[in-house]
């Protein structure tokens, strides 16, 4: 019997395993109808202890497009957690109903506890500020599909680099590939944490930290935008002074390479001006599409379906 596998952290899969996963996602992209019966008779349980409409719909659509069906709950109030049931007990019950589970939980490590008690594969669909591996897999697949590989490019990460878990996770995941150069663009209050820059120094991976986006725009192959939230600043003056540095508009895009791509984990608020949406370099909605392909590929891989 094959060992039960879960997806808790993007680093759970080796670089080679991720290549296979992304190849499969590429095949799905080319021939979506060809995969529409791969999961006939299979059930995905989406156990969402906190609302996250986009992630849940992406998982559910992925399973439905594979021919499978979906059960689950969209917030803790409509689950037995409201009655005080433990995560360990819930997953034991879900294991009796479904073939695979995607779990989102506000408590960090909850999907890992579930995985340790589960007899079906568990996918971490986001646990508090800790991990959100399928977002990182989405980002990696998007970069690979648009650029052709996951090697030799410069990526700028802009905005809140201190608290953004998607940013930390993406940096960790990209640090396993060759020839990547990072440029961190943020106010000093929201700089990338020291443990990340320490890790990059240890691995001899080049990085630069700047405050203004304009300064580095011409160097970038990818620009990963995140939101700068007002409440992260100590005072309003600083926020007002700095916020425009991190809003992407036509003026700043004029400085970028013709083939630079803009990514964003979404939801976007005002950090990317809507006037950019029709720019061919705006890849953030395409990224959502890749998110579904990578979740389809992940479901197939964890279920051991060829």
């Amino acid at each position: 019997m094959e060992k039960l596998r879960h997806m808790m952290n993007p680093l759970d899969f080796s670089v080679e395993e991720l290549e296979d996963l992304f190849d499969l996602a590429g095949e799905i992209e080319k021939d979506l109808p060809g995969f529409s019966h791969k999961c006939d008779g299979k059930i995905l349980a989406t156990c969402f202890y906190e609302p996250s409409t986009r992630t849940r719909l992406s998982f559910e659509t992925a399973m439905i497009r594979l021919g499978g069906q979906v059960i689950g709950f969209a917030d803790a109030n409509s689950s037995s957690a409201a009655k005080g049931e433990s995560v360990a007990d819930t997953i034991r019950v879900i294991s009796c109903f479904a073939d695979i589970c995607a779990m989102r939980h506000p408590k960090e490590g909850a999907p890992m506890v579930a995985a340790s008690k589960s007899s079906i594969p568990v996918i971490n669909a986001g646990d508090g500020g800790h991990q959100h591996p399928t977002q990182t897999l989405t980002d990696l697949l998007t970069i690979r599909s648009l650029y052709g590989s996951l090697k030799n490019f410069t990526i700028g990460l802009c905005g809140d680099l201190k608290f953004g878990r998607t940013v930390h996770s993406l940096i960790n995941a990209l640090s396993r590939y060759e020839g990547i150069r990072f440029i961190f663009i943020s106010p000093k209050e929201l700089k990338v944490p020291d443990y990340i820059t320490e890790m990059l120094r240890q691995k001899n991976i080049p990085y630069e930290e700047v405050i203004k986006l304009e300064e580095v725009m011409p160097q970038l192959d990818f620009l990963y935008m995140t939101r700068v939230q007002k409440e992260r600043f100590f005072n309003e003056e600083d926020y007002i002074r700095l916020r425009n540095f991190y809003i992407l508009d036509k003026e700043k895009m004029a400085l970028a390479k013709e083939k630079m791509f803009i990514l964003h984990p979404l939801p976007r608020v005002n950090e990317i001006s809507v006037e950019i949406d029709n720019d061919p370099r705006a890849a953030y909605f395409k990224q959502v599409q890749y998110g579904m392909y990578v979740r389809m590929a992940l479901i197939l891989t964890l279920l051991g379906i060829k």
Partner: protein
Amino acid sequence: MLNIGKIEEGFVLDHIQAGKSMQIYRHLGLDKLDSTVAIIKNAKSKAMGKKDILKVECDIDSLDLDVLAFIDHNITVNVIKDGVIIEKRSLVLPKQITGVIKCHNPRCISSIEQELPQIFYLADEENEIYRCRYCDEKYSEGDANNL
């Protein structure tokens, strides 16, 4: 000067950082033993200024030395037989410790899930950093008082 006699069979934990002996006494479960235990606090030390020493008359293999290594891996462990030191054991940082320290991250699942063991793993050996198995929160020395 206070004198404590030699032990015949057992072990001596020497070079314990002054003030930590009671913590070690508790975590090694020495309070549950029916053996002779001597706790020497604030003994004079050339190297350390002050140190604590524990002398215990029982078989060393019945104790969890991983816990000891986690608390302070610079402690010297002398195994005694027939009144003489027959072995000096060195302590290595354990790769994982269970049920010794508690995660203080309020967002961690271990803060609400019943009967979940508290597990920490050695994330960085050089800097002696342990992280919670569930949420990866770093264990900070300041939490040591809550051991």
